[in-house]
């Protein structure tokens, strides 16, 4: 397989989303101290309680050591947190009434990425809260959602318009002291998204946010908070691509989900941050803390992620199943090519009775990619009747990559049922040849085989995302067999 020149050529293709946009930016000089945090808070016109919360996080962070966050099976050089600029926003400060007022450069960037922030999106029923760098530049469909009492806006707007909600839930799932990167985020986050679905309301459209890092040396510290009140339903889509950069860029986001009685939150991610070049230079460090709390009875949180990008991915979207009969799900496809590293998985914490969790993880490793599934299933003493099913499959392409599985089980209730299945396989030459003999090109064949492998996860994605995910997978796998 390693000799196929066609595949080798594909392997050397450049990252397709690698371009940058020239937009005048309002960027704070690199460095981090209390003054910078006060500046961020001030620029955003935040209330005192929020500044106070940031400062407490910062104080905590200074006591923490990055080494303690290095337990994952990933390797990266020491990061210089003083070399990062912690605030950057496009200079448009006035409120925009329509898309026409958005900077044409920014609109062009979204177009290049195939993200039409326009009527097409509206017609297809997607309201888009576009995060360009750290500050939202446009929010659409807000009026319609507002009719239903749904709040969907940038985090900064939420702080202004719904301070009581933000104050109540911010840090309630991921406390500011949680871990090195989440704590850093708590101190310096600039923006993100906020969603609140009132009791009994089913959000009529998929909510989506596109993130994009665009300012050199600017770390992105997004913060997302989604609250689904009793009996509410929401499906949220998060998708990212980033332009090519030589320096490593730190991305330390925090996502918190809260689901009350009978509420359902479905959170889907397609992540395609710049993975670095084929020698492993550059690329995003994606250190994300995502956690959801099923607070009420029969509530449900479902995470679906397709991780194809980033030099390093470190994330464990988790569910705390507090309510009786609550349900947690984690469906993941992670791809590592060239020198990418991923240590990803989930935590399912069963606290309530008859709680149920499902884990389906599909890892694809090619080139010199290293991939780890790390998952924890914890059944507390009182979680009578808890059930978990985990399935972790790894697909290896080529012979220089690696796949590792670390399932942790902590069961303290004898009535619990916990199942774990794991497989590791390789794309066989037989499969490849079979496809080719039917007239399919190598690239199409690999893509088809891998898509088949990921099917159980893709079918959890909303339709439009599934198509995008499958396309991304093909792009990421170019050259995979080389």
């Amino acid at each position, binding site marked *: 397989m390693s000799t196929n020149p066609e595949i080798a050529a594909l392997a050397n293709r450049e990252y397709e989303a690698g371009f940058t946009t020239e937009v005048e930016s309002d960027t704070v000089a690199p460095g981090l101290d209390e003054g910078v945090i006060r500046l961020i808070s001030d620029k955003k016109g935040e209330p005192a309680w929020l500044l106070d919360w940031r400062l407490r996080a910062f104080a905590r962070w200074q006591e923490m050591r990055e080494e303690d966050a290095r337990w994952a099976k990933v390797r990266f050089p020491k990061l210089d947190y003083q070399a990062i600029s912690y605030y950057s926003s496009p200079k448009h400060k006035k409120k925009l009434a329509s898309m026409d007022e958005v900077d044409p450069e920014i609109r062009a960037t979204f177009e290049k990425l195939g993200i039409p922030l326009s009527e097409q999106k509206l017609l297809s029923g997607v309201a888009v809260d576009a995060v360009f760098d750290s500050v939202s530049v446009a929010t659409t469909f807000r009026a319609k959602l507002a009719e239903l009492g749904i709040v969907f806006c940038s985090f900064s707007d939420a702080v202004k318009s719904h301070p009581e909600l933000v104050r109540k839930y911010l840090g309630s799932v991921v406390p500011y002291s949680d871990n090195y990167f989440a704590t850093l985020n708590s101190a310096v986050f600039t923006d993100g998204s906020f969603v609140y679905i009132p009791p009994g309301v089913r959000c009529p459209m998929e909510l989506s946010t596109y993130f994009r890092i665009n300012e050199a040396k600017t770390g992105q510290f997004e913060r997302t908070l989604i609250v689904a009140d009793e009996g509410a339903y929401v499906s949220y889509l998060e998708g990212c691509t980033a332009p090519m950069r030589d320096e490593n860029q730190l991305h330390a986001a925090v996502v918190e989900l809260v689901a009350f009685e009978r509420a359902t939150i479905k959170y889907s991610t397609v992540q395609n941050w710049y993975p670095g070049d084929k020698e492993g230079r550059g690329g995003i460090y994606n250190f994300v803390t995502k956690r959801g709390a099923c607070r009420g009875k029969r509530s449900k949180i479902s995470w679906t992620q397709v991780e194809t990008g980033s030099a390093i991915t470190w994330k464990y979207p988790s569910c705390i199943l507090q309510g009786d009969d609550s349900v947690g799900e984690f469906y993941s496809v992670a791809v590592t090519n060239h020198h990418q590293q991923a240590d990803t998985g989930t935590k399912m914490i069963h606290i309530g009775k008859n709680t149920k969790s499902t884990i389906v993880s599909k890892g694809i490793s090619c080139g010199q990619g290293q991939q780890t599934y790390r998952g924890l299933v914890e059944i507390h003493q009182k979680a009578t009747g808890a059930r978990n099913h985990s399935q972790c499959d790894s697909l290896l392409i080529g012979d220089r990559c690696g796949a590792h599985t670390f399932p942790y089980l902590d069961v303290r209730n004898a009535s619990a049922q916990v199942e774990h299945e794991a497989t590791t396989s390789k794309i066989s030459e037989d499969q490849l040849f079979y496809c*080719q*003999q*039917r*007239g399919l090109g190598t690239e199409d064949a690999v893509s088809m085989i891998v*898509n*088949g492998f990921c*099917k159980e996860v893709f079918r959890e994605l909303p339709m439009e995302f599934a198509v995008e995910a499958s396309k991304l997978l093909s792009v990421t796998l170019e050259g995979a067999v080389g």
Partner: protein
Amino acid sequence: MLEIRNLHARVEGKEILRGLDLVVRAGEVHAVMGPNGSGKSTLANVLAGREGYEVTAGSVLYRGRDLLALTPEERAREGVFLAFQYPVEIPGVTNSYFMRAATNAVRRHRGLPEYDAIDFLTLVKQTMKSLEMDEKFLARSVNEGFSGGEKKRNEILQMLLLEPTLAVLDETDSGLDIDALRIVADGVNRLRSPERAVLAITHYQRLLDYLVPDQTHVLMEGRIVKSGDRSLALELEKRGYGWIEREVAGAAPA
């Protein structure tokens, strides 16, 4: 259609084909028989362009072109079809999706319009009916969990959809009961036309009861050592290969 001259090929450093000559004209069906290890499957794989089968000498002309210079997918698109001895399973990829992708890849190459989902479904259902295949196989993953006979039928289904110019059947008859054998042979017979040719590699002559060949060849130690008509197959069935071995040994120069 197909002109194989002095073909030598190695697998894992071992020479398997040692100067094979074979000419198949359009409209003909040729049967290639031979004992185990004589090079039958190697011939099929070399024609299809499988990696690891190294041609060390000789030439293969297909419709006047150098077949060996083409990639496996180019050969397939140019009309060379191999019915696999061991069809491969592809989990998670539905049979209908796979077949439509393949059919359209081939049609695109031939400058024919691609099938949309509906047209293709109509066509494939019709074809399946003729092979007495249940439609449930459309929604199942390619060959996954299929019985031996079901896999072989699935190969023939694909062959009929891809409409190859040269179909190479690599022991398609093995593992089939008599009813399945008849259905598969009917499928192949349906493909027969003055523009097409079939190369049927087989262990047993029973397939040839249904798929009457224009010529039968005996492959032994990497060479065609004897050719004849249909009666040669019957004779092999009765007498085995020993007599040919002796005949060849006797004829070989000292």
